[in-house]
């Protein structure tokens, strides 16, 4: 599988990125009211991904077309074309996609995304980029964040930390903070869960904390799972040395079987009691807040 990693050649042309959707007002993607841009495409493939349709780029197989009740999908010259005016937002297309993709993606320019954001400007504090994995659109982000900051908006990345973002000075110069997922600290379990090593994730966590760019750490907690418990403990240990100099929120997220695929559909939710127990494990590590959501 080829991932859409930006290249210099790509940058030379007009910068475009595949945008899955934009949420105009979010209260849960960083401090204050924010507009969130979700990019299509991810370098991880997590078993519990709650929006698996954002993982891959559409291969234009056309399998989804027949299932669209609104006739919003059409095969034109070998490409599945989505008509957002006809779309009724039922999700049938991506729910039927065997390839964890969706035809509902717009190749957007920085200008188009910024025009959308500026319509929300008076009411928002900033923008958050998410996905998919936003760091795959690195060049696009540098330009988008530069323009957002010029407009007085704060800039946050919601990232899986699979790419070495913390050492990317150009990107970090226009990024106010990163909300980083630490899914698993155990390498083998992480490989099994996410299909990708966690080595870079943990290095990013430390380097971002050192650079005071780490806003939030997130761990999705699985019911009665000893690895979840160990991950929370390890994350506390890993970051404790840096927390006196920088404010980091630790968000413990209950696994919810919503939007997930395959075996995860049958996984139970962790109890509030389990969450509180995990929260207590890191209460004294120096996080600004530990939040259960």
């Amino acid at each position, binding site marked *: 599988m080829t991932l859409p990693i930006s290249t210099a050649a790509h940058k030379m042309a007009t910068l475009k990125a595949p945008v899955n959707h934009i949420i105009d007002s*979010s*209260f849960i993607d960083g*401090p204050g009211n*924010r507009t969130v841009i979700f990019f299509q495409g991810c370098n991880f493939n997590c078993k519990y991904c709650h929006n698996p349709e954002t993982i891959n780029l559409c291969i234009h197989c056309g399998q989804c077309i027949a299932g669209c009740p609104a006739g919003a999908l059409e095969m034109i010259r070998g490409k599945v074309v989505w008509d957002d005016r006809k779309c009724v937002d039922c999700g049938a297309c991506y729910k039927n996609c065997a390839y964890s993709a969706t035809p509902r993606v717009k190749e957007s320019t920085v200008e188009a995304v910024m025009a959308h954001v500026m319509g929300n400007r008076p*009411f928002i*504090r900033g923008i958050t980029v998410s996905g998919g994995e936003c760091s795959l659109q690195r060049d696009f982000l540098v330009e988008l964040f530069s323009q957002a900051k010029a407009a007085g908006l704060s800039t946050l990345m919601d990232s899986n930390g699979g790419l070495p973002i913390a050492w990317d000075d150009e990107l970090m110069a226009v990024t106010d903070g990163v909300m980083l997922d630490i899914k698993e600290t155990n390498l083998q379990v992480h490989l099994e869960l996410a299909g990708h090593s966690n080595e870079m994730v943990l290095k990013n966590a430390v380097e971002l904390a050192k650079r005071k760019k780490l806003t939030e750490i997130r761990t999705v907690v699985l019911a009665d799972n000893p690895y979840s418990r160990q991950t929370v403990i390890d994350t506390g240990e890993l970051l404790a040395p840096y927390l006196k100099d920088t404010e980091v929120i630790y968000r413990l997220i209950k696994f919810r079987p919503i939007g997930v695929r395959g075996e995860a559909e049958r996984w139970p939710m962790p109890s509030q009691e389990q969450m509180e127990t995990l929260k207590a494990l890191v209460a004294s590590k120096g996080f600004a807040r530990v939040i259960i*959501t």
Partner: protein
Amino acid sequence: MEKNLETLIAQAQQIVANSAMTHEQAMTSLASLPGQFASVLNLPDGFAEMEAEGLLCNLTEGYLPYCPRYILPDYQKLMDEGCRFLRLKPPTTLAEAILTLEIFYRHVPSVTHYPVYLGRVDKMLEPFMDSVSEAEARQQIKQFMFFLSRSIPDSYCHMNIGPEETLAGNYILDAEMELQEAIPSITMLYDEKITSDAFSEKALSCAQLCAKPSFANSPAYQAANPFPYGIASCYNALPLAGGAFTLSRVMISRIAEKAKDSNEFFEILPKAVNTLCQFMDEKIRYLVEDSHFFTTNFLVQEGFIKLENFTGMVGIVGLNECVNTLLAKDGIASRYAQSQEADDLSHKILAAMNQHLEAYHSKYCDVTGNHFLLHAQVGIAEDIGITPGIRIAIGEEPELYTHLKHECKFQKYFPSGVGEIFPFDETAKNNVGAILDIVKGSFDQGMQYFSTYSDTCDVVRVTGYLVKKSDIEKLSRGEAVGQANATWGYYASKNQHALERKTESL
């Protein structure tokens, strides 16, 4: 209604037989009855017909005025000088200051017979903070708020805090977060340049628990009202040491129904406004010249209020329905707040209202340049199918930013009060800074007044005032509750579906 003794007695009997009224509620209802039957006023030509037709509305004030509708006493004068009539010396401690206010509030009348304005309480109490420990100050302020919630059975009573952050203001909010009572209503006089984010976020956390405080755009209100003002009753911006003689309404949606098209609407409107203004002036004349309130009441005699600081308010409701009706009659396929044509018509109607009020000279309204002020009224139980003020009808609310931008465009027409409510779901409690972002952005774009609450709380805002959902349930079972205006909340939920306002899930 036939104005004879039999009708009056029949209505009195209905009040007496109503098990859902407390003694006090029955008493005030009985007291207002004769005023509905009186004919001491020289009604202007055409008023009686327009009122009977439902084009003009007296808002159950009756026809025998004996005190102003809304009174905003100069409480700072009470703190500085005490009160001769009530034999109160200027307070010297926090406990004395609180007791002085509690006693004084008991003697401030209004259309509801309870005080509709409690003053800028944080500012008044702040000088006494040095005299007690923090724990004592918190305890006394909490007991004060508790006392108000149980002794003033009406949530039209309105406390103001801000714009400066004070200890007293913080303790008031902390107490309210614990008590979670519907009474009193509170407004934060918000000024982005003065009010700290921490204080504002505490206020919004409080609002997510008990639907208060609301936020008033203080610089905008001050610019529209070039005199010291306070926020009273629902959200009425009125002169301090004064208030409003009266509030009556032009029922623009019914005028739209009567007119054959928008051209005829704009012909009828000035006649209706003018007739209402003449009627209000006659009520004011009677109150000032024939009743003795402005000569004998201790508030006037001691200078807590002054005749020259009173004005009159002309309310409108149902801009939503008015615009929909006129668009349909003009053959335009659109609805309120959904197109440029609808917005143009809305602007034209509100500008016309202000133009007609500007053209009318009222003798006693010195403080507002001898003009009445336009007010976006929150509606009464009888307004079935009429949306409060300029709000978008329940069930037709657009997405959040469109809704906010709509309010920003139209709230500016109302110097004496307008407001919209934006309920949020539970998520907002963890990030009230997000609501503050929305308040800041809205006020920057011209919004005047912003209310919010969480859909999961017992205390909610119905149209313009606070009620407990649990009280509304009791009333629906025919049980009495202590809060008088919970009854209006009950009718608003039944007749106007006021509890079904769209909640923002973010």
